[in-house]
């Protein structure tokens, strides 16, 4: 595939991420911060987000597997995850974090996990 074709494909993927609600206008803010002095800024910040997220998800998983579940700690992790995902424009992740925090507030993380199971196999 030539350069033009690849750019076109990247643009299509980018547009679909917005159309499907995975990204919001905050991601555009990130793109606008990229310039000649920070030419790879978007790539770097998304990579940083993935690294931080992997660590957070691991901590969330450990907390969910502990008994009794420490809902305060779980809420802190979800709070942090919601903050970082909203900051890079990861709209769907932010929304799910907000929903999960509501379940945590009710002390019912298992119900949220159960509600996700159908989506894991169909999405």
């Amino acid at each position, binding site marked *: 595939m030539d350069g033009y074709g690849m750019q076109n494909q990247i643009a299509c993927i980018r547009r679909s991420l917005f159309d499907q609600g995975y990204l919001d206008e*905050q991601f555009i*803010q*990130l793109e606008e*911060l990229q310039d000649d002095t*920070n030419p790879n*800024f978007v790539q770097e*910040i998304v990579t*940083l*987000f993935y690294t*931080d997220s992997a660590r957070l998800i691991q901590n969330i998983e450990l907390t969910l597997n502990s008994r009794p579940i420490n809902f305060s700690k779980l809420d*802190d992790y979800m*709070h*942090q995850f*919601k*903050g*970082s995902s*909203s*900051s*890079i*424009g990861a709209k769907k992740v932010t929304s799910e*974090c*907000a929903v999960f925090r509501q379940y945590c507030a009710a002390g019912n993380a298992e119900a949220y996990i159960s509600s996700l199971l159908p989506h894991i196999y169909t999405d």
Partner: protein
Amino acid sequence: TALVVDGDTTCRVLEQLLLRSYGVQTHGVDNGRDAVALIASGVKFNLIIIDMILPVLNGLEIRDMGVHCKMLGVTACSGESERQAFLAAGVDVFIEKPLDPEHLVPILRELDG
């Protein structure tokens, strides 16, 4: 100059870069204790941007540690009770994350006089 206090690296890097894009010099720390220590060492800041929940000495406690400059509280919490708590703790402005130019620019203009 501005101090960004956020335990999340992604948020802290983004907030610092956003400030720098408007010509603001920035420092960044990931907890309230280091923020207080930095200020106590004599470094002057016109603005502190601080998250409510931090690993050590969170945003709700920092005013009690003798911090007097303008504070902008940013947090992923969106509830009215969190907003009131953060304002009662001494932040001058409360913003739900993400920090964006729409909220930041008026504050920078006000500080610029």
